[in-house]
């Protein structure tokens, strides 16, 4: 458990990216940033620049794939999509995260849920 939690903490950005890409169509990096901003209502302070190394890392790990395409305003942009493996990992990551949050919440509320 402990190890999973640590990894999760470090991998929060990865998890958010996968969640964004899981919502449907391929997205470029900017759209991913907007999606995170949108769904969290700006609660998470994210330095947008950190998304990009994370995107390339996920790609290296084979969790997402990428291809060049054209954005809605006709600009050349790189679009990402979740691979099958990425989808599985996203589900697993979401489940781990919930358990983690539950556990931490329980601890912080003095063992009463």
């Amino acid at each position, binding site marked *: 458990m402990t190890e999973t939690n640590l990894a999760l903490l470090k991998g929060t950005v990865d998890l958010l990216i996968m969640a964004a890409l899981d919502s449907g169509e391929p997205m470029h990096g900017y759209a991913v940033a907007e999606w995170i901003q949108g769904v969290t209502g700006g609660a998470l302070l994210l330095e947008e620049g950190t998304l*990009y190394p994370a995107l*390339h890392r996920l790609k290296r790990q084979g969790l997402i794939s990428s291809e060049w395409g054209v*954005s809605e305003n006709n600009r050349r942009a*790189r679009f990402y999509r979740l691979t099958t493996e990425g989808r599985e990992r996203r589900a697993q990551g979401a489940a781990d995260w919930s358990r983690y949050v539950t556990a931490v919440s329980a601890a912080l509320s003095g063992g009463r849920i």
Partner: protein
Amino acid sequence: MTNDGFRPDRRLTDQESEEDLDAEIHFHLEERVRRLQAGGMSEEDARAEALRRFGDVAEARTGMAREEQKRRWTMGMRGLFDGFRADMGVGIRQWRARPGMGLLALITLTLGIGATTAIFSLVDGILFRPLPFAAPDRLVSIWSDWTERGGPDKEWFGYPDLIDVREQVDAFEHVGLWGGFSPVLTGMGDPEQISGMNATYGTLSQVFRIQPVLGRLFTEEDDRPGANPVIVISHEFWQNRLGGGADVLGSTLTLGGIPQEIVGVLPEGFDAPFQPGIDIWSVPGIDPAAVANSRGGANWRAVARMNPGMTLDGANQQLRVFADRLREQFPESYVGQTPVAYGMQEDLVEPAREGLQMVFVAVGLVLLLASVNVANLLLARNSLREGELAVRAALGAGRGRIVRQLLTETGVLAVVGGALGIGVGWLGTRVLVALAPDGTPRLAEVTLDSRVLGFAVLTTILTTLIAGVLPALRSGRTDLRDALVGGGRDPGADRSGLRLRGGLVVVQVGLAVALMATAGVLGRSFQQLRAVDLGFDASDVVTFFVSLPGAAYTDTEARAAFLAELDTRLNALPQVVSAGGVGALPLANFNGDVTYTIEGRPLPEPGQETAGWLRRVTPGYMEAMDLRIIAGRGIDARDSRDAPNAIVINETLAERFPGQNPIGQRISLGSPDNPLWFDIVGIVGNIRNFDVRDDWRDAIYISNTQFPTRQIFFAIEAAEGVDPTSLLPAARATLAEMDGSLAIAQAQPMSELVEGALGPDRFLAVLLSGFAALALVLAVVGLYGVVSYAVTARLREVGVRMALGAGRGPIRLMVVGRSLVPVGMGVGLGLVLTWFATRLAASLLYGVSPIDPASIAATVGVLLVTASMAAAVPAFRASGVDPVHVLRQD
């Protein structure tokens, strides 16, 4: 075929460029600015805000680039691995598809690598590996060089001379004197002769620097006259004979009638490199002062450890100065001798060196031949696959890719061949050790260890490269259009391929000729050696060794009487034609030189003394060995202790009396001041005393009764038709009757000893013949492959010729004739190689010239006949074609 590793390489198309990374960041920032501006912000503020939200651009950029780099590397590795796996798969399938060719290549590789590995383990264990002692490069053997007085260059020493070397020559940290002896062990069942070594106190501890596993080694006090007799035993003797318990220390063994206390046990595996198989070690306990004046003898040998930093040249320089001083000091007795130090390892392996080098070179040639053979097979195989390879090339496989695949296929072969070869090498090593002639130095150290394994792996890699690169490069070059248009219908149309393969046949035949001719000349030399007139008749003779212990036979009179009586009793045994004793048997590599002067002649200048082999014999010896009596008589019973000193000389010495009758003249074996005169009573024929290759040399026989030795060999000649070894029990009983504490040792037929003396020559001839046969087979297989291939290539031509009326006979002649062209060129190359190879063997040869016309003629004859036969099979196939059938294929 799409699974064969020829899918298009995705790495290049998928590679991220630096610009792409920049473009991705740029797009993000522009998009943000656009949105902010749409929200009413000024462009300037929007840019500032976009950058703020993005954070550190450079860091993001670096992070992306790093991930991309990692990804590329992983993919590259995966690609390589996948490619390799695919190649392996294809390779294995390819070999399975054509098992005959694969099997042939595999057998060739296995034999080549196996033979090379086995020979290397022998050569490495004996020649290359350092001796298993501390700082082995400081170990030397010291010999006495007697060439100045007409003696051998490696003679033994007198005890005080070597003690003086130890004390006066700085070059050496320690000098150990040694001499083997054969004590009779009593009190443990039947009396038994064991193998002993008498070596001065520091030989084990200071020269070889070994530690006992139990107890102690000798001290200087042990090695003094009158000291309590103590011995140190070998690990093997301790384990096998004494039970291997710690209580062995302090117990005693009765050797030569004297109880001797065991004070130490040597470490396991320690063997005196100069004389293996020693059971017990003792110290001589001689007081140098007591023998200080008996100089110039030849009954001790020496090993030494040089001081750190001392060189062999430096040591020999000092030894020469020492010898000059000793000669001045003892002008009468220390004459024409100089101690010479040799590196111990070189000295030990010297007798085996040239033969082993020869064998090593030979096996190297066999390996080369095997590689060429495999190359040839691969070329043939690849040309049959030209169509397939062209298709692959057409589908986008680059030349490098195809070369890589072919090399991997060869690699599959090499891995299997190498593994089998190491197995064969392991077996071969054991066979070689078993077959190696007696007296081969360091044989116990020959093993197939990590050094040898490393060598085998290197050999395999080298072989693969030689065999695989050429064919792979050639096929990589295949012209797509030619191959596809040819459609594989006429696989041999490629003339340059034929030329290349013809060239390989030239090399193969050349190597085979060189090996066969060298083996031939060595075989002829061996024949000559076997046919050498030894001067004695070894048939029906059995020999054994008897040693009289010093304690019981101190008195020379008693020794003389005992041995004369033994001679008489042995001669009286039934079935015995004649029996007699001698100080050293012929061919036993024993010099035993003596300097002599002839009465009435001017004394020779110092350094010009005459010397010869000295042998003490009992009355029956000359008859037992059938030495030819040329004039007068042999040593016999008349030469008793009361009779005048008698001497029998050999033919060569008799030539020093031109125009005179030597019989009746006198010879002195003493110094000029103190002559010891002998009457010449007879002349006997020359015999090979030291070695089969001896040149005739002066030899002197004296009566053992008059000058008795303590250690003697007896030779018994059995009646015709009687197995001489069947006389041994009676001989044993006779000895036991006379003295129950004595035992006979080293019993063997004299013929065995003669065969043993030829052992190294036989070993070499057998090995070389084996390699030559292997070479012939490989070359013939190669030739057969090429001719069959050429015949297939020319089937249409043959068809046309036959359609035009050519007979089958001329067709066959044409095919065989053409195939003999590369064979002829190979023979030419082989003759050149032979010239070099036999030169290498020159010093090993006896009675034949290195360029031996008979061996060369036989080699060329055998090769041409075999080659013609190899070519005839495909030639018959060619002449059997149906022209209509062949031509219709167009």
